[in-house]
């Protein structure tokens, strides 16, 4: 008998106390009632506060000023190469108008080798959802968000979130996300507390997360 058959059979025998007629969904799951939703302006405000709580950089801006803010997020950083312009990874679908002119653009794609990602100074991306209660950005790796590795390997991640993408809480986010897409939930920069519980930002992922909340 295969391992599969043995395990399933053992599990069935172990559950002899569960009546055969009990439907699979029998144990009732009562979720907490949804709270009164805050006005959208306050939801976005909470999102900004909570993202900042993780020591990420957060700025609220308008569509007209967004390009300038992206440039500002890159300003003052030194290129890994030592000289020349910053090498910035830009996923397909990221709004071209937001990409500063004085950087070397590396377009992301399936054929960009990991070693190439490692030579990038930063990455620009959009997001799928922002969660106010937890200060979380969710990427579904669609348009403008790049592959999962794109927002992981470079040391700086500048993420542009539209105000209308921010939802109040985790259940609201799960409800709009598509499980077939790979999802990356990001709450602040990479962090560890493994050494005497002292929080240190950046072990493997980007050490700096810069979030721009853009509203019209």
């Amino acid at each position, binding site marked *: 008998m295969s*391992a599969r058959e043995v395990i399933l059979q053992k*599990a069935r025998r172990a559950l002899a106390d569960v009546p055969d007629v009990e439907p699979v969904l029998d*144990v009732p799951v009562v979720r*907490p*009632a949804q709270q009164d939703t805050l006005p959208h302006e306050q939801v976005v405000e909470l999102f900004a506060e909570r993202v900042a709580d993780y020591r990420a950089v957060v700025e609220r801006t308008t569509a007209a000023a967004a390009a300038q803010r992206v440039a500002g997020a890159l300003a003052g950083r030194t290129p890994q190469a030592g000289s020349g312009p910053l090498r910035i990874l830009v996923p397909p679908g990221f709004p071209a108008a937001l990409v500063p002119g004085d950087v070397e653009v590396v377009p992301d794609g399936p054929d960009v080798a990991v070693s190439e990602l490692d030579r990038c100074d930063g990455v620009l991306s959009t997001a799928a959802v922002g969660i106010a209660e937890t200060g979380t950005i969710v990427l579904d*790796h669609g348009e403008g968000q790049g592959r999962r590795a794109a927002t992981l390997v470079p040391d700086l991640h500048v993420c542009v979130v539209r105000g209308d993408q921010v939802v109040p809480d985790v259940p609201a986010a799960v409800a709009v996300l598509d499980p077939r897409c790979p999802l990356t939930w990001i*709450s602040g920069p*990479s962090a560890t507390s493994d050494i005497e519980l002292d929080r240190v930002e950046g072990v493997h992922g980007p050490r700096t997360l810069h979030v721009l909340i853009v509203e019209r």
Partner: protein
Amino acid sequence: MSGTFLGTPAFPTAARAALEDSQLRRNLAHATGTIRGKRAGVVGEVDEWEQLRLAGAAIKDRVLRHLPDYLEQLERSLTAAGATVHWARDAAEANAIVVGLAKAHGTDEVVKVKSMATQEIDLNSALENAGIHAWETDLAELIVQLGDDLPSHILVPAIHRNRAEIREIFLREMGSAGRAAPADLTDDPRRLAAAAREHLREKFLRARVAVSGANFAVAETGTLTVVESEGNGRMCLTLPEVLISVVGIEKVLPTFADLDVMLQLLPRSSTGERMNPYTSTWTGVTPGDGPQEVHVVLLDNGRTDVLADRTGRQALRCIRCSACLNVCPVYERTGGHAYGSVYPGPIGAILTPQLRGVGTDPQTDSLPYASSLCGACFEVCPVRIDIPEVLVHLRSEVVDAHREHRRVPSVQDMAMKAASWTLSSAARTGAAERAAGLGGRLAAKLGRPAPGGRTVLGAVPGPASAWSDSRDVPVPAEESFRAWWERTGRDEA
């Protein structure tokens, strides 16, 4: 590289040794105290935390009561999404599957995301025996692995080490495992983390095969989830060509929507954060993004035995948050190693004996007694596992397992019989009380003062010594209640 818990003595012996390590107790008190405070803060922010716990428990119960159906559904969803599903009855089978896959890809190394399931089956040793290096990439696991040490906490496995010890380990060992630590390394956590980043990045960028566990596996969609902080998980889950996930069969959730409850309960309970820095979900293979070959090993290894126990079954709800460790007065003083198992603390005290089976070795049988039954673990458990209930149940199982082998009555049996004879007659009880009072007056002279102004006895000789070795024996009252009543109470009544 890293050892196993094989040969750990029974809990009372191991705990006694741990209690003598004052550095360990300082580290533990600081760490558990800090996490307790943070957890209480973020749990307090959620108005309906109790309702959320009930929902979490109900979701897991729903899965457990119909596990075979959900496992078959999970297998179908995973296969449809392009993953390959394997089934493993025990550690040996699971290890053979992973080793076989690594070998088939001609690699001599794999990168690993911290995973309780792969620790449980001691996958690293199996890989090493097959000539394949398994690199742990979680910072704490790296510290444990380089130090040839054992993890002592589910969430922060190197909780027993301080920064100076970690610096020593990095300087001494990193060079032989890959990129050496910089010679001027200090014990600043920032510098230590940077050394780990450099050391591991080399491995991430060249690795072709990765091994992970999974926090959740959604039956409805075939979605696997890994919850982490550092990004080493994301590195392993997305950079290599082949991803192998070893998943305990109890990790199943019915629907994708159930993740909302779990993703609220888990980070707040474990690290005391509103959300952990990174959560990754993946559903089979995504063309052009991440590993193009995805394997899932569904692991039993005793879980179906746990399932068969109606009281103990609830232990399979566990989502490995480690909140129970951080509140446990026993864990806080002994640390994780004393439990002699991959799962330490209160959850380990009920899960380990159930997975291994009671009545076979003294170490396992000692675990249900590694508790004061204070109930703090149940209070914090995000999926409401009644750990004290299961502990008491398992104690009775341990007693039963040994009763069958015993021909002569034990000291306890005889003591109970004698007590029953004494207590069944008022005259005999009164006589016993007078004797106790005499003993109390005598003992008060021999005892030593204890905190709170009480007088206690040290270890007492004879059959009670096993009990008194680890407890303060109170001195009997010098006067019995009856005698006091005779003397004072009558007139006022």
